[in-house]
């Protein structure tokens, strides 16, 4: 069957078997291997992508079910060569060690900050509670998200008066 969707702002169309899971469609059909695949039980959350802006476990969505929808993967976090504040926060606060859980963690964090620009630590912990990190003990992930909340991208600041307005693009070359 043919499926068409928008992935990181780009329209894609492919012929696939109906049983292809969204995570495999993204990794194998589109070659975007930033999205990871870690379990068979919908528990680990490393496969999280944004579907119409909401975090979903892409191992538990058929690519066919994403037909006509808008998908954002970790590759889509960089905008115009500038890292997303969430990505930069993970660098600043050591939000990753092996990096396996990181794509899912960052997308959930992005979605959280889009809805709630100033979450407290418990709101962050709740948001990522469907995702497993075997390295960091989560403390540095929470700090990374707080870093991002304190340093919103320029484009975010119009909507969020509390932002510092500092530009990330000057600090990082992606």
């Amino acid at each position, binding site marked *: *069957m043919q499926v068409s969707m928008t992935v990181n702002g780009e329209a894609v169309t492919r012929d696939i*078997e*109906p*049983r*292809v*899971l969204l995570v*495999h469609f993204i990794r194998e059909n589109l070659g975007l291997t930033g999205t990871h695949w870690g379990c*068979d*039980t*919908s*528990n680990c*959350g490393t496969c*999280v992508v944004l579907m119409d802006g*909401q*975090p*979903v*476990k892409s191992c*538990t*969505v*058929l690519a*066919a*079910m994403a*037909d006509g929808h808008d998908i954002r993967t970790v590759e889509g976090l960089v905008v115009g060569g500038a890292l997303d504040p969430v990505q930069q926060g993970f660098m600043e606060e050591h939000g990753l060690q092996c990096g396996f859980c990181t794509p899912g963690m960052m997308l*959930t964090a992005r979605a959280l900050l889009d809805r709630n620009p100033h979450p407290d630590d418990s709101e962050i912990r*709740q*948001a990522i*509670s*469907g*995702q497993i990190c075997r390295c960091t003990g989560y403390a540095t992930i929470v700090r990374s998200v707080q870093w991002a909340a304190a340093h919103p991208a320029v484009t975010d600041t119009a909507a969020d008066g509390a932002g510092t307005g500092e530009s990330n693009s000057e600090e990082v070359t992606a």
Partner: protein
Amino acid sequence: MQIPAPFDYERASDVANALALLERHGPESRAIAGGHSLLPMMKLRLARPEWLIDINDLAELDFIRREGDQLCVGALTRHTALLESTEVAGLFPIVRDAELVIADPVVRNRGTIGGSLCQADPAEDLSTVCDVLRAKAVIRGPGGERIVPMSDFHRGPYETAVAQNELLCEIRFTIRPRSGSAYEKVERRVGDWAVVAAGAAVVLSADGTIEEAAVGLTSVGLDGTVGEAEAVLRGQQPQEDLFVEAARIAAAACHPVDDQRGPVDYKRHLADELTRRVLRRACVRATGAEEG
């Protein structure tokens, strides 16, 4: 690599179309909503449908609205929407209690109330919630619409009154004054299925006695609610002695099994303790409710 066995897929455009597709493709076709129970089962080959009829475009089944003394919830309503609804939290706090501990926020973005009830896993939290609220299921099929009380909806583990060529469309909850409800669950870790959970709903009469009561337990092999415990509660003033007695009866009435989530004694202890807690909280909430 665990992926489902081959199947054919078709996306339904509305309820009538979904029913026509289920009819046309026959017994080996199944509706898929959030897919968060069905796809894991298909990966494990515990389910092998030949056709999946995707009902996610059925916007007509995605609603929460009040009609007179009924709160009507569409079958395609996601867990997240139920959790975030202030109307639901105000009228039926048990739903919010349960939704806070059903899976995790990412799973809740996809899983639906209809899928939960139709899955009818013995550990499904919303089954207990709907049981104790004495909800009604609106089911549509080739023969039209029928309304089934929860007591007839559940037919045993993984079995419901919804036939292969039918769809669960709506769940209705009766809004009653001076009512209160609560749910509490013990799980091994965040986002896991219940070791045991308990739910209770009460309606108080004007003099403060318990007019109606419902007590339910999750994951301990109970069919429906605990009638005996409810009979003990009815007509009495809410007080600790009474909760202790009702909880003792509920714990004795259930059939927990020894598994990786815990031994029988522990589960029975939880059934007892959690029933006391939810009865207490439901009664307090019923007293505090200004409207209903």
